[in-house]
């Protein structure tokens, strides 16, 4: 199904766009202009155009202007959504330290709010924590501090330092010419790194962009969903040799739970763990004499997952997408086992992951000399090493990827939380756009379905879900434009929930409603033969009646 795009003219934004009656009016206005069915397109510059089918509006309205009964007034009009250009606003405040800008330039600042704040800032880590109470730390807002070129706060060669709490410190670029322009260019670069770029927004709309233009990064992360289930599995194929213990509960509560708590606004998470005995990998590793170890080459890795997956059993429980993280302790006869990448080099983490599925890590155990060994050997898994890898894989699977930055940028490590605030913001920006796009496509296709099958019955709760979805989506668009990321995301999530509930309602199955031509096709062969003698006898009765009327006049 192709989508063509139609642009709004500027004058339609004169009225207050929050009023839903206004949207209806716009619809009818455009209908009268004879607009056609229009489609969705991922537009340039990170904007989106979404438009539904306005045709249905005209059909629903009766000749006297009343709505068609049984469907609820205005349902069709509301269902066809009206979205203007996506406007995403990031509130950025730029703070100039004293002496950062030369005096002449300072006067040219468009508006400035001078605050006298004295704080001793020695090292950069302290700077971030010290500056935190000074800035407003709402979702999506950024603060950039500009310090003089010669300041010792940042080490040599580092132009920008990005902290973990939505703030960045940059050196004022020195040089002839317009310093302010250089500052604003640098600030734009920082803001793009910390919130969103055109590419990331286009990737969020990836359903609507032809496949060739996408990189592998878009196929790796999970789609926006309301919940995820994370399963940690320990695979012990050789329990006779290894008695493996892992303190998974403590590791999850110490390392994984803070990460998931930070992502708590994004989705619901449920974590479980299991230990599988006698579960082998599907591929036999090769022995490599040079390193006297066993090797799993990169080509055999895709075939490792399938035989194990049937035994994981994690997919029987919930309807949410499942992320599986497997820790494999190789058998004694196959130890040590290393993974090689395509160039033949050993992989440092000894782990690999599969897009939209999860990750596997191989944990090698040190074996003492054979005669001293007392089987089974007790193995206590070093959970820190394991969780470092699993958290990295978790980040990749959620699409929190490393942003390509120029060399002068220095990023602060996210620490035990695994996720910096601005990375969360990046995720929320793309997820919000993705949610709104999904809502519009869902409701548009629902409208088309209703269009096609004229006599489909829409229950009241389906109608109310559709209204709620449209209202929430409009709220989300407005909040995005005004820069309130948190409320925009919540509104988009509610819109998705309502639209999915409306679309997948079991009563809307097209099979249950017969088109009129099928009804004719079934009933005509039944009733037509029956009708022929009835009609003929009616004709006969009428003829006789006519004759009997004529008779008395004749016999006189």
């Amino acid at each position, binding site marked *: *199904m192709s989508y063509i795009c139609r642009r709004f003219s500027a004058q339609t934004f004169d009225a207050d766009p929050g009023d839903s009656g206004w949207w209806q009016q716009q619809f009818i206005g455009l209908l009268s202009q004879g607009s056609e069915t229009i489609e969705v397109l991922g537009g340039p510059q990170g904007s989106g155009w979404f438009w539904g089918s306005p045709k249905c509006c005209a059909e629903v309205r009766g000749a006297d202007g009343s709505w068609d009964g049984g469907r609820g007034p205005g349902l069709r009009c509301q269902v066809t959504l009206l979205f203007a250009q996506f406007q995403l606003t990031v509130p950025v405040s730029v703070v100039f330290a004293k002496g950062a800008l030369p005096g002449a330039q300072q006067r040219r600042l468009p508006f400035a709010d001078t605050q006298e704040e004295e704080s001793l800032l020695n090292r950069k880590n302290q700077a971030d924590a010290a500056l935190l109470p000074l800035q407003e730390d709402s979702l999506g807002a950024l603060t950039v501090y500009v310090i003089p070129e010669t300041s010792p706060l940042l080490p040599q060669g580092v132009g920008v330092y990005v902290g973990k709490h939505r703030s960045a410190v940059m050196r004022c670029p020195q040089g002839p010419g317009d310093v302010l322009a250089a500052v604003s260019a640098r600030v734009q670069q920082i803001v793009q790194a910390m919130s969103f770029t055109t590419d990331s927004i286009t990737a969020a709309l990836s359903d609507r962009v032809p*496949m060739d233009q996408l990189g*592998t990064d878009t*196929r790796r992360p999970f*789609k926006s969903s309301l919940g995820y289930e994370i399963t940690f599995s320990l695979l012990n194929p050789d329990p006779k040799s290894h008695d493996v*213990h892992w303190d998974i509960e*403590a590791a999850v509560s*110490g390392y994984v739970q803070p990460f998931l708590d930070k992502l708590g606004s994004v989705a619901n998470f449920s974590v479980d763990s299991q230990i599988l005995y006698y579960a082998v990998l599907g*591929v036999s590793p*090769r022995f490599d004499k040079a390193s006297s170890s066993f090797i799993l*080459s*990169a*080509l055999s890795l*895709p*075939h490792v*997952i*399938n035989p194990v*997956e*049937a035994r994981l059993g994690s*997919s*029987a*429980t*919930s*309807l949410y*997408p499942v992320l599986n993280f497997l820790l494999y302790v190789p058998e004694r006869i196959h130890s040590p086992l290393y*993974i090689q*990448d395509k160039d033949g080099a050993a*992989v*440092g*983490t000894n*782990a690999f992951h*599969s*897009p*939209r*599925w999860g*990750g596997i890590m191989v944990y090698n155990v040190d074996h003492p000399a054979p005669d001293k060994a007392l089987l089974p050997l007790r193995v*206590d898994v070093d959970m*820190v090493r394991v*969780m*470092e*890898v699993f958290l*990295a*894989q978790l980040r*990749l699977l959620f699409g929190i990827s490393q942003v390509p930055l120029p060399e002068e940028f220095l990023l602060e*490590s996210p*620490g*035990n939380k695994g996720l910096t605030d601005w990375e969360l913001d990046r995720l929320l920006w793309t997820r919000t756009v993705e949610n709104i796009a999904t809502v519009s*496509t*869902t409701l548009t*296709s629902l409208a*088309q*379905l209703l269009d096609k099958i004229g006599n489909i019955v829409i229950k009241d709760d389906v109608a109310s879900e559709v209204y709620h979805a449209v209202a929430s989506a409009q709220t989300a668009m407005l909040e995005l434009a005004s820069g309130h990321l948190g409320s925009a995301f919540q509104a988009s999530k509610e819109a998705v929930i309502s639209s999915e509930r409306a*679309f*997948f*309602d*079991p009563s*809307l*199955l*097209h*099979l249950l409603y017969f088109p009129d031509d099928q009804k004719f096709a079934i009933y005509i062969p039944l009733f037509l033969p029956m009708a022929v003698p009835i009609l003929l006898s009616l004709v006969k009765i009428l003829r006789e009646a006519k004759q009997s009327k004529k008779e008395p006049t004749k016999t006189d």
Partner: protein
Amino acid sequence: LLFSCLVFLKGVGTVERKNLSEDQAEQFFRSGHTNNWAVLVCTSRFWFNYRHVANTLSVYRSVKRLGIPDSHIVLMLADDMACNPRNPKPATVFSHKNMELNVYGDDVEVDYRSYEVTVENFLRVLTGRIPPSTPRSKRLLSDDRSNILIYMTGHGGNGFLKFQDSEEITNVELADAFEQMWQKRRYNELLFIIDTCQGASMYERFYSPNIMALASSQVGEDSLSHQPDLGIGVHLMDRYTFYVLEFLEEIHPASQTNMNDLFQVCPRSLCVSTPGHRTDLFQRDPQNVLITDFFGSVRKVEITTETVALDPNLVGLETRVPNDEMATEPLKYAEQLPVAQIIHQKPKQKDWHPPGGFILGLWALIIMVFFKTYGIKHMKYIF
């Protein structure tokens, strides 16, 4: 799996393999799917339609062997042949005569069985408009990166497929269902295979993108069955699926066979009908589409190169001292079912009881009739 490992070990040493492997690595991401689903439907019931169940089960077997797990397969069988009272070999469904290949196996999971296989349930599975109480195994939880294989078999005609001898699904309904799936991006690419009479009519009406369709016969032709087995008494497989199964037995998870080879399966000389296919809605060239893109589940993998730096000191973990567990006795199963007693018990001696009830009454009647007829005084001649 052993076979695939052998192939790998053989190929690793040669130089040509290394160049080929680079192409393979690039091709991994060409198809754009990350998971595979299969919906396998057999629509006919009754014992003489044994071959349709055998068709579906043989495709199920191939698909499982090539890696798709049961959680990603929706299997719908309209009747039970393995435990049918007319089956001389219970718990088996054979696909080759002389009982060479049992496609029923040990771990078949049928999701929709018997009377649950209806047009409505099939369309609900495809479109996702399922009542909330449906268990997970009965749902098609595909996403926009899923390649789905849909295989249907049964009795069909020009534009319809018969379900359970009582209802039918038309090609228009099927095309609309696929369109609903595309609207919600419930598939990345879809392969539709149908083995019925006049099967090509079922894919004529498709209009959604990324669908490739194969059918066993053209409009106006009948699909014929392959071979009867005299021991079981029915035809075991249909010709088209028989040769497709033979073709699939050669495929292993790492094979590079493409769709053009599948189109050549079962030429007119073997199949008597002319198999057809439709690729105009499909974006990629069938030459580049691997069989395992739909029938298998080859996962894309990436090496994990980065780690997150964690500081264990910040976490208030109490390092648990590993307790030396007390050596406990190994646990045994309690004797819940005294099997030995049941097997070896002798039949109990029944105590004798005088006849009562019906037998007594019957004899009394006979004696009364006898004496009525012949009179009491004649008794002395008897004794």
